[in-house]
């Protein structure tokens, strides 16, 4: 009797421990501390990584919109506060500039069998990040309103504004357009999107000298101003978040917004299912006829910090492999345009895929692009409000950028 009980207990313990070992990712020990931005797709990745937690492996995640501000100080300490920094095309630049992340070549060779070639971000020959999703701004439109008024899906800004004029003349909507024109990061992103569509460069190649004072720069500014004519008077206070309630209140027919938010517009918990059903997506409009979409292509990926132990680095990489696994993607297919093996585009991904197929250009990753982004964000709105000329706006942008780049050491 005693023997039977003992062996039963022993057998149960054996089975239980085997089960526990199967539940984690087989990582022996380590600490995985993730810092990321705060939206649904990144929550899914962090949750996927958290499946590797066990008695010897701790996995914590901090998802905050302030990640860009805290990542440099947090990764500079030794040991770094976070082992994994989830970044995008622009937020990897300060980590590279300050030498805060480690090359991933050996980890990819050992544990990265599931990764596709286009997920590997190589800088100067070394793999510095693993990308797992693509994002871009694109066009959102109401199928029913365009169909009822005989309007085709616009392919250029000129067509978009003509469509808005038609809707205004027909008395359907007075201000049918919306975009994120809040001064600061958002307005600058709109300028960057449109300028990329012109095919021109921002800087003299190989240097930090600004090169937007040309015909294309003026054309982009004039297009942005033309768009405001068809936007509600408060356009200077709209960012991507503010657009959604207005869209759901049936007050906009065509908008420019982020692909990562498209899912929420047509999801099951959208505020108005009737409007959600009529919401469709397309590639961003082009600046010129037969041009490429006015969209910067962004990628989101993860990096591993330098100032941590090798054990933590390897554990973090393996946990993130679970975080970006095809299994994770299968459960969260419509949260993002995944770059993961086996991804099938969903209805929410149409806009971003359209941008990629249309030949949209990636967001520039020069180390001084951030300074230009800030200078743009601060100096365009006065032109849009009609207080100065386009040439003066470009001059102000140049003055602000040159002062900042001189101070940051990129210009003399």
């Amino acid at each position, binding site marked *: 009797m005693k023997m039977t009980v003992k062996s039963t207990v022993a057998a149960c313990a054996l089975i239980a421990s085997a089960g526990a070992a199967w539940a984690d990712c087989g990582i022996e020990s380590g600490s995985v501390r993730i810092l990321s931005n705060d939206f649904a797709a990144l929550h899914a990745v962090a949750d996927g990584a958290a499946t590797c937690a066990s008695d010897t492996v701790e996995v914590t995640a901090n998802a905050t919109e302030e990640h860009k501000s805290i990542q440099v100080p947090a990764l500079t300490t030794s040991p770094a506060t976070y082992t994994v920094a989830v970044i995008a095309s622009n937020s990897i630049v300060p980590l590279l500039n300050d*030498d805060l992340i480690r090359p991933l070549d050996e980890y990819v060779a050992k544990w990265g069998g599931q990764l596709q070639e286009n997920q590997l971000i190589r800088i100067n020959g070394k793999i510095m990040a693993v990308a797992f999703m693509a994002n871009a701004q694109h066009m959102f439109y109401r199928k029913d309103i365009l169909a009822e008024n005989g309007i085709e899906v616009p392919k250029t800004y000129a067509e978009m504004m003509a469509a808005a004029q038609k809707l205004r003349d027909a008395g359907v909507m007075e201000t049918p357009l919306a975009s994120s024109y809040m001064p600061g990061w958002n307005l600058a992103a709109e300028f960057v999107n449109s300028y990329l569509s012109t095919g021109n460069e921002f800087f003299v190649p190989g240097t930090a000298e600004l090169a937007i004072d040309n015909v294309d720069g003026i054309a982009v500014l004039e297009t942005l101003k033309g768009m405001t004519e068809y936007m509600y008077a408060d356009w200077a206070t709209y960012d991507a978040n503010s657009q959604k309630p207005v869209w759901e209140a049936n007050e906009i027919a065509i908008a420019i917004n982020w692909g990562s938010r498209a899912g929420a517009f047509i999801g099951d918990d959208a505020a108005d299912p009737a409007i959600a059903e009529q919401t469709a997506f397309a590639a961003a409009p082009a600046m010129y006829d037969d041009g490429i979409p006015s969209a910067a292509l962004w990628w989101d990926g993860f990096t591993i910090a330098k100032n941590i132990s090798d054990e933590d680095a390897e554990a973090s990489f393996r946990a993130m492999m679970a975080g970006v696994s095809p299994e994770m993607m299968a459960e969260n297919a419509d949260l993002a345009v995944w770059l993961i093996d086996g991804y099938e585009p969903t209805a929410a991904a149409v806009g971003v895929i359209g941008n990629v197929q249309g030949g949209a250009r*990636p967001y520039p990753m020069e180390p001084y692009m*951030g300074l230009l982004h800030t200078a743009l964000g601060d100096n365009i709105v006065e032109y849009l409000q009609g207080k100065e000329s386009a040439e003066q706006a470009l001059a102000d942008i140049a003055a602000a950028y040159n002062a900042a780049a001189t101070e*940051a050491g990129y210009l003399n």
Partner: protein
Amino acid sequence: MPHKTFLAFIWPSLLAMILFIAVPILSVAYQSLFIEHEQILVTSENCGPFGCKPQVSVDVDAMRQLREEQPMGRFNGLNTYTNSSHLAFNDINEIFRSSENFNEIRNKIMNLPFYKALIFTVSYTFIVTPLVIILGFIVAVVVNSLPNLFKGPVIFFSLLPMIVTPLVGSLVLYWMIDSRGIIGAGLQSLFGDPNLSLKASPVLTWVTLFVYGVWHSSPFAFVVFYAGLQTVPSDTMESAMVDGANRWERIRFVTMPYLLPLATFIALMQLMDNFRIFEPIIGFSAAASATSLSFLIYNDLRASESPLFGSAAATSMLTIVGVIILLLPVLRRNWREFNRKS
């Protein structure tokens, strides 16, 4: 009081002030004299999800060596103060040289980022401060004459605007003045203009910010004046009543002169506080129409790819200089009184 006794009493606060106020200010002033090292750039092949292309990046090994040798960066002297993001001496010379009339000069100077922020900051300070004093005084006099039953609740509601966190208060007001909000829609029907939007016009945004400033700060003036009103000498008040002064004359000739020192105190505090205005600009998303000196500092430090520490430090020092200039009359008066007494 002999100096030794005075020192014995004050040395703890003196130590704290030196450690937590003076040393940081000196450190910021020192940092404003430096800029980053010249960045050593290399061109290499970058590959990502969207293809490979030659990309400029920073040579981190060379930079690390530079930083180890000279951790503070390159010495720039006062050039950060005179560059076009701050006092812009070169740009102003250019403007004076090439402009035709005074209007053009004024518009061009107001277009420079530092002066644009300075104009708004100074306007805010000099419009909100007197209004706060006046409104606080009126509310204090009214509350003082209420029957005791109502005093408590009215005082509580009068203090609420100050208790609410500035950012939360401005966000609440921001949504109320939205065209679909209660104040916005009310104004639209009042003026019969369906397109009236307080957020659209820079002038109206400035007015909104001033109104918010007065609303938020007048409880402070109210509290100080209300406390002062409790100590107005009753014999002077009674003799005024006996002399036949009506209510308004009593307030004007007895209460106001008695409360004048308190008004000076409130003016001092408000000048210092309003010069540093920042939260309402964020809460009202008003950066399109109004920037302030503190907002410039915030912008410089938030450039996450390369925070501009030197530029933010220079703007901070200029803000301190601005506050000192504002307080100069009061400081001079106090200094003269101190000299007279000793």
